[in-house]
Structures are given as C-alpha cells and as structure tokens.
C-alpha cells in the first residue's frame, strides 16, 4: 500500500441514494465520488436539495426511509486504535443499518454534529446525561469515570464552569453554548471523522466565529478528519482544505480550497461564486446600479430526470446537442482537480 492510499480515511464510490415516493423517484444522491483524507477537512458546498446532507447520513447509515442506498460503496479505512498503521477496510454500505458493527462505528469512530442545536439534544435530560450516554455505550468505563470525561470534554469546548453546566438542561444554555455541548458530545469518543452538517447556520456571526475557531483547534488537538457541509462559501474558505461542489445529487467540481476560489472551472461553481455579494466590491465600487450576477432559472423539480448534464437548462455555456444529450465525463484538469463538464473534455 502506498503512502497516499494510506492517508485515505473514507472513500465514497458511485453512491446512489433514491427516495421512492408516490409521486416518483427522487434521486437525492446520484453517483457521488468523494475521498476524505485523515486529519483533513473536506468542505461540501451546495444549495438546498443538492444531496449534501443525504450523502453525510449515508456514511452513518442513517438515511431516513423511504430513502435507500441503491448502489455504490462507502469504504472506511479504519485505523486500528492502538497502531495507526494497521488498517482494515469496512464497506459501510454492506453493513446492516441496525447491526452491531455500524453501531460500533456510529457516534464512536464517525460522529456527527447537526444544524439545529435546539433539536439535536433531548429537552428532558441533562447535558451530562446525554454526553455520558455515548461514553458509556462505547467505552468500558464506570459512571463516575464517564462523568469525569464528560466534564473534561465540556472544558475542552470552552464551556465556562463545566462542573455546573453538566447538570443543566439544554434549554438553560444559549444557542452558542448548546452547539458547544453538541460538539462535546460528538467528540467524546475521539472520532476519526466528524461530520458537521451546517453546524453554525443557526448561529449569529460572532458566535459562528467562536465555534469555527473552536472546531479548528480541536481538530489540531485530536487529529480527526472533518466533513464540513455548508451552503456558506465564506465558511468553506475558512475551514476546508479540499472542497466539493454539489448540484442535484452530483459532485460537479472537486479540488483544493485555493483553486476553487481562484480558478473555478465548472459553470455552476463560477455562477455560485459570482452571485454572492463581495464586501470589497460593494464598498469600492459604490455605484448604486451595480447588480449581482445571477444563475438563471432555478433548481428543477426533483422528480424530473434531465438528459445529459443536469445543469444544462441554467448553464451560460450550454452547448446545444451535447450538454442536453450526453452525460458529462468527470475530467481531471491538473492534479486533484476534477470537473464534471463537457467544456473540459479532451
């Protein structure tokens, strides 16, 4: 096994997740390929309905019915606890979603932080009980020791007076503190991978800045990988090393964070970047009639199935007869820069 392969933690290959509804089939995830490396942050960007959350839930086998993983593999290169070099490969898609094996991974080796800190915690149990639950389930420790560890985790996420907060109920904490507690819960078993699904979207900017800073320093301390899902391009620029842009269940472009902002290639990525107001430009060019560029049209109805490239009805570089007919190939343009677009096909 080579050095670079050794670094891979999770590999998603051609993942398809479909929802069979009375109105038709929704292809929420329609052929996603992604690689998450150890100790790195992969940012996943896209608008609502692009399949970014469903991709994340597939990793934990938590796709809600009637959703089903139809096809594809999720390979988890599990580092042995004691010896980091020993790796065994688990195909997550092949596991029983209620089985012992996935339950050993879920919340322990791969854990997740959700968007709404209000709904991610049970309102009738204390913060401590909820953190200790994960510790007792996955580690062979006594209750007293679990409590000790829970307090330690709360201190780690910089909650003031953790000995007191541990006996508080979630409603007694502010939004920012609650999100810290949720992060403490997710990290209590020192996971290899943390999936963060829009963890700061519900928070104010100054609180968001605190949480982002906290997540970065915890990542350095604990050496975990992060899969960071967001629609906010600014947050991605700060958090991620590698970025994947999703549109309608597919990854349309994937590369490192610098390239995605400085040299985006896919017309959707470019449209997305052009449509956000840039502070500097708003101020410097104080021309009142200045308009934002926009992507024409809107995301098509989820039941329809478009031929060819799914972005073609909105694409400014649309080539008639090609884009609406043939499926675009996944083109490698430079090292580690993948674009799913006919424009770059050789």
């Amino acid at each position: 096994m080579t050095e670079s392969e050794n670094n891979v933690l999770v590999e998603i290959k051609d993942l398809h997740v479909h929802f069979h509804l009375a109105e038709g089939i929704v292809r929420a995830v329609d052929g996603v390929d992604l690689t998450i490396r150890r100790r790195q942050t992969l940012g996943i960007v896209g608008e609502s309905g692009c399949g970014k959350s469903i991709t994340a839930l597939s990793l934990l086998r938590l796709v809600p019915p009637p959703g089903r993983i139809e096809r594809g593999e999720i390979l988890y290169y599990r580092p042995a606890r004691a010896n980091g070099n020993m790796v065994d490969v688990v195909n997550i898609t092949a596991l029983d979603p209620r089985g012992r094996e996935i339950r050993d991974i879920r919340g322990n080796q791969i854990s997740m932080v959700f968007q709404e800190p209000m709904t991610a915690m049970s309102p009738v149990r204390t913060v401590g009980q909820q953190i200790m639950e994960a510790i007792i389930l996955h580690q062979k420790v006594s209750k007293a020791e679990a409590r000790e560890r829970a307090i330690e985790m709360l201190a780690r996420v910089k909650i003031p007076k953790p000995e007191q907060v541990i006996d508080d109920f979630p409603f007694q904490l502010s939004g920012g503190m609650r999100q810290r507690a949720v992060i403490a819960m997710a990290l209590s078993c020192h996971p290899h991978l943390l999936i963060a699904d829009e963890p700061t979207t519900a928070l104010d900017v100054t609180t968001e800045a605190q949480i982002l800073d906290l997540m970065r320093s915890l990542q350095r301390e604990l050496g975990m990988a992060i899969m960071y899902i967001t629609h906010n391009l600014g947050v991605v620029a700060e958090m991620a090393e590698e970025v994947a842009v999703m549109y309608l269940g597919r990854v349309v472009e994937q590369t490192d964070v610098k390239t995605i902002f400085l040299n985006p290639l896919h017309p959707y990525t470019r449209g997305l970047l052009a449509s956000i107001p840039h502070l500097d430009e708003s101020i410097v060019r104080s021309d009142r009639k200045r308009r934002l560029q926009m992507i024409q049209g809107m995301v098509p109805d989820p039941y329809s199935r478009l031929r060819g490239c799914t972005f073609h009805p909105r694409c400014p570089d649309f080539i008639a007869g090609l884009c609406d007919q043939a499926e675009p190939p996944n083109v490698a343009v430079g090292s580690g820069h993948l674009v799913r677009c006919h424009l770059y096909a050789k």
Partner: protein
Amino acid sequence: MPDPERRSQSNLDEPLLEIKDLKKYFPIRRGFFKRVVGHVKAVDDVDLYVMEGETLGLVGESGCGKTTTGRCVLRAIEPTSGQIWFRDPNLGRVDICQLTKEQVRQVRRNVRMIFQDPYASLNPRMTLLDIVGAPLRAMGIARGKELEDRVAEMLRLVGLRPEYMRRYPHAFSGGQRQRIGLARALAPYPRFVVCDEPVSALDVSVQAQILNLLKDLQEQMGLTYLFIAHDLSVVAHISDRVAVMYVGKVVELAPTAELFVSPKHPYTEALMSAIPRPDPRPREKRILLTGEVASPANPPSGCYFHPRCSYAADICRTDEPAFEEVSPGHYVKCHFGRELSLTGAIRVPSLDV
C-alpha cells in the same frame, strides 16, 4: 405605475421617516396574578432617519431589536414610547405612534413590509390573486376586473407570469414565493418598505435574483427601504447607510463605505472581523468576542457592550455613552468614538480588486 420622480415635489432635505427615542418594552409576568416583575427592553431609545429614495441597512445579532424596530414602524406592535415621523403624501407629516386606527390603515398604504420566511408568510389557502389583491381590496383601491389587471401588472413586475394568478403558493419555490410577497407589499404603490431579512431564507443563487429585483424596483418605483438583515455582505451591497444595533440600542450609524472602512464602535469592529469571507488567502487574526450577548431584560451598567469590549475603561462601566456625531453623518455610541482607531472589514479602499 407611479412616477419614480414623484418625490421631487416634496421637500428633499427632510427625511421621509424619522424615528425619535423609540422604546418598546415587553413586560415579564410571573406568578398567579401575572404580576409584572420586569421588562425586556427590546428597543431602547432608538434614533434613526431615512431619506427619500435611500436604503438604510439595519444590522445586528438575533435579539438585538432590529425586527421589533421594523414592526413598530408599521404599528404592527404598539411602541412603548417615542415618535415615528413619516411624510405621508395624503396625511402630511404624521407621528405614526399617535395615529388612530383608521389613520394607521391609511398610512399602511404607503408603509409596507416584506417578511423573512416565504413559507410562513403566504396563506396556503389563498390564490395569488387573493394574496396580492388583498391590500388593494382592503384599501378600496381596486376591485373586479381592475383588481385582476393590477395583480397581473404586479406579478409581471416581480418577474412572475400573470397566468399563475389562479394558483396557490404551494406550487412555487422559495424564491418565487418571495417574489409573491414582494408583489403583495408593492401592490398599493407604497413609498416606504420595511424589508425584514428578505433573503436570509433563500439559497445564494436565488438570493442574488431577489437582491437585484429589490434594486430594480427601487429605481422604477422610487422606493425607500429599511433593510433589516444579519448578513453584513448583503447589507453592504444594498444599503446607502447602515445602522448597527446591540441589545436594543443603535451603537453606530454611518454611510456604508465609511462604516466598513473605518468603524468607530468596538462592537462594529468585532462584527466585521467575524464575517466569513469567501477568500482562501490567509488574513489577519480575527477578533473573537468573549462571553455572550447581554440580556435585554437585565442589561449591564454603563455601556451595554463593556463586559465584552477589549477597549473598556472605568467610565464604560458606570456611564452610558451618548449617541454622538463624530464626523458628518457618522454617529457613534461610545465614550472613545473619536479616539479609537479600529479595523474595518476592508482596509483603505484599494482598486486592485
């Protein structure tokens, strides 16, 4: 369509809307007899003015009172005290707080509101014709065929097809619903629109469409906006001037470029430092605020921001600072507003963007 130049007839130096010492306290009630044990000071002594044809951005974190201020302007909630002067084309210059019910109805022809959540703000059992036509019917502006024509015109204006008139809101996406809300707000040809987070529930690509539409309509109809938002990039894009609120008070008010280049209040500085930038290049160390936003039910003494402020001195703990003009059009509520040199969201405007 009204003439966008209709404002020229009136006095241009006078603000279209002027808010003076506005207060809104919500009582906290406890016990069997619902005794009032305290007040949440949601809006506490707010002073603002909006000139005709401009956009005033109102920013701040959740709970700072920006929405409450917007709602008071419409008398959607009753202000506790203060004055809101509005130059109404029919009634003349009136204090919205003192109007009778009937007069409020008349003023609402000219002062309208757009809401944040496009899913919650449209009645699912009404067709677009009923939704957009409702203000016209209620104010006796149009009925029958005339009403239909006006609704068709409004739908066309916001970029929707008039044939959709008989459909229900569920058939539309978030962005389209926000256009419907906009058509309803603009149907009586108002002069002043309170936009309460109109794009924060939308995806980025749709957000750009709605922001452009708001700008175009402002141009075409000669509108004045009070634009409430928490996203500073959006506010910088659309506003001529920006007011920053913290725990019920306006702490800084300045022309947009000046505020973003040289803020004078430490809270504004921290807020700007926290904006996530879509730029992967490393940047200077950001200012991380410690602690939490003060509670409006039990605010700290002196300057409300002092427990989190890195520049705080003794005077900040005891005396509340005044809201002073430090340079033309730039107001700050800070004891050291004239002395501090703070970092803005962008450095000196360089043109090599």
